[in-house]
């Protein structure tokens, strides 16, 4: 999967949730959305971006969501 494209998509998700005054709700919103709508290989690919340190272009809520909710977001090995 095109990691850059996934980062852009995740950023757009973050832009929606960012308006919530409670930061934890916003982070939770991003994480839940990724969990419910992103197929495992997409989530795997965005973790690969994160792990490769490609966080410069990532919305900070995306970084936070991936880091805080890694366990529930990381798909089981296929």
């Amino acid at each position, binding site marked *: *999967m*095109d990691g850059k*494209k996934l980062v*852009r*998509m995740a950023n*757009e*998700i973050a*832009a*929606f949730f*960012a*308006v*919530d*005054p409670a930061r934890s709700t916003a982070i939770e919103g991003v994480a839940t*959305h990724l*969990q*419910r*709508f*992103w*197929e*495992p*290989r*997409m989530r795997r690919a965005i973790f690969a971006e994160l792990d490769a340190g490609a966080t410069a272009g990532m919305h900070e809520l995306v970084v936070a969501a991936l880091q805080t909710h890694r366990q529930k977001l990381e*798909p089981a090995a*296929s």
Partner: protein
Amino acid sequence: MYSNKVLDRGTPERTCTTTVALHIDGVQVHVPAGTSVMRAAIEAGVKVPKLCATDSLDAFGSCRLCVVEVEGRKGYPASCTTPCEPGMKVKTQSKKLADLRRSVMELYISDHPLDCLTCPANGNCELQDMAGVVGLREVRYGYEGENHLTGTKDTSNPYFSFDPTKCIVCSRCVRACEEVQGTFALTVEGRGFGSKIAAGPTDFLNSECVSCGACVQACPTATLMEKSIVDQGQPDHAVVTTCAYCGVGCAFRAEMKGNEVVRMVPHKDGKANHGHSCVKGRFAWGYATHPDRLKKPMIRQKISDPWREVSWQEAIAYAASEIKRIQAKYGRTSVGGITSSRCTNEETFLVQKLVRAGFGNNNVDTCARVCHSPTGYGLKQTLGESAGTQDFDSVDFTDCVIVIGANPTDGHPVFASRMKRRLRGTPGKEGAGLIVIDPRRIDLVRMPHVEAEFHLQLKPGTNVAVMNSLAHVIVTEGLAKEAYVRERCDLVEWEKWRAFISLPKNSPEALAADTGVPAAQIRGAARLFAAAPNGAIYYGLGVTEHSQGSTTVMTIANLAMVTGNIGRPGVGVNPLRGQNNVQGSCDMGSFPHELPGYRHVSDAATRELFASVWGRPIDHEPGLRIPNMFDAAVDGSFKALYVQGEDIAQSDPDTQHVQKALESLECLIVQDIFLNETAKYAHVLLPGSSFLEKDGTFTNAERRISPVRKVMPPLAGMADWEVTVAFSNALGYPMHYDHPRQIMAEIAKLTPTFTGVSYEKIDLLGSIQWPCNDAAPEGTPTMHEKQFVRGKGRFILTEYVATPERTTRKFPLILTTGRILSQYNVGAQTRRTENKVWHDADVLEIHPHDAEQRGIKDGEMVSLQSRKGETTLRATITERMQPGVVYTTFHHPESGVNVVTTENSDWATNCPEYKVTAVQVVAHAKKSEWQREFDTFSATQEAFVPKTAVKGETS
């Protein structure tokens, strides 16, 4: 005219709850107050002769054939215009009445050609019938006097002709065009004997006429006549079925001669359309027997190979072996399927079942991805159910309508006629207010007897800003329906939302620079909507096909809740769905994250339920959505796709990326009635069946499940559902169904909102709106009546985020795309009908100012360029556009509009942003490189199909 086998009650139904008792020919009858004497009589089984009256139109009282006697009254009143009164004693037959009627008929017939035996209406003509009924035996006036028998026939419309020599000037056609269709194309010219019917100063084709056919079925004579009847003769039987074009889901009588359709006439008892239709359903069904129809399965190894015609068995066995091979090599999730929003519920259900249980993953999606997926998401989040809240009839009770991002007169014409009627008002009831939110001046903004109070002509991509500012005005000016909100909505979320929406950044003044809409207009529109006792919001793809598509759907739900407009007739959130069964395909579990009935695959109990009935475990992870499938194909992890009745190569954005993805597949299985654009990349081609060739159901935009009936055998021998069954069996996942009714029984068993649905009940009721279960055994016209499906309505914060697509010096214009009346979606069907006379190519609409700056003249070829690609098409200069915005449609593959559109998409659902692309337009006569390649590729692919595999002219 309408079939004389169907009872015509003469005047429209009245629904008043008070009844009136009277005597007709000595028999006591009870009817709702306001009912005409004519209707009362006909309902009591007493036939009153009539010519100018028909039950789809208000009575007019011009022919005087329907005269009756009323005890205690002088003279002979026309029964069609006389309302029933308590205690009335009516006589419909007497010597005097018979004489009067005979002389009326004598006058008519004296000016009518007596060629009944060779007339196409022979056997289905009211004039002929009435001559018989009144016992006309002689005509004393000869043809020597002045008459109308020399008029010339107007055959300009491709589907019906107008023969003025047969016209009796009853004006039923004129009234049908006004009252039913709302187009006002016809007039009665001249007076008295000289009066005649005219479509303005021109012929039908060049007039305002939109070819809906309402005048044709209203005409009691052969004056307005379907050409198909002229060619084929009168039908011998009729079957009630449902239009396969748009999400209005009109009911039709397919009038047949043996296995041949003679004409399609809208069904009077159809609850979505009440006897009305548009040009597509009424006339454009010829594609079903078009010579291009595929009739033989075909396979090939590579897309550079010619097709090899094979048996069904061989094609299906090959497809199954490829899926198995690919899964063995690349893994379980390397394959997927796409269900069709044009196929039936039962067929869609089977395809997703095949993917989930047979392929063993959730890689199933549907074309709703590219249209209304944000509706599903947005409404589920806010209200709790992924569907519109009303039935179409609801519009009759509304006081103010918002139409946002929809062009109903082109996209949903039959519903638009209903809406226009409400906007015009009816005697005693003032028309409803109208607010149009659209970058283009769509027809509804101003048309005969309809004018929008406000047209908020926003810049494309700023829907959320406009909707937020409307809500801002309502909240900050104290216009919110707080009592409603307190009773029905989640108050924590409400307080949060109220604080957010009241922020100065959401005011119309602050947002005017982004939206381009003057603040005063927003304030005026907000006040108008908030003041209406019943306000309804209708929307279409101009809402969903944006990077903030889902957010806009939520703003719509927010606005409806804050104004107390959900849960009763006349209000609501009304998505106007595109394709005939897009609601159904979503209901049937076509999305990769949801099982039928919108239940997430992560829900263990639901998975268990399905696993127990299907005998296979269900994957708990969401699958790939269509754009993700393309990305995964390009990246090499997705290798095979089964596509039923969709044309992703033409309909999806960023064509070159899609082509690359399709070329990367090792096995593409396409099932379609034509060699569509996607099929040109396929390895297995399975002939599909048209809606006339199978049984099943479609679900329209109002959640109405309507019957689809087989009226002719499938051209290639198998209905689409049978193909999926055979495919699944070959794959080693057995399916056993002999008839779609068994599939519906399985759907009902597995889906709580469908438990009460069965073919028997659909036959009984005609159609059913889900939810249909123990709580609502006859279905649910209005949702969320007592409370929201999710319990408390949820306001959601909807921050306006500008689309990433920005105009630049290189691409200074915004392109937005849409549809027109006569063509349907990718046009594969309508392009193969006479509808092409109205639209034989996609054109680019451009404002005179932008055209002039670029030296572009009307009708010239121009090159349309974006950062994604370029294409050449013809320009039309029009002031419907605002400066800076250009518009086109995507009905023709060679125009390559989606070569230009981008990969941007809705943040929540990946629904593509078709509505906003930064472009440049330059005068340029040559085809683009993509178009030249397309021409060569298409020609090669078409030549690969053996002549014997398509229907051809004669078979």
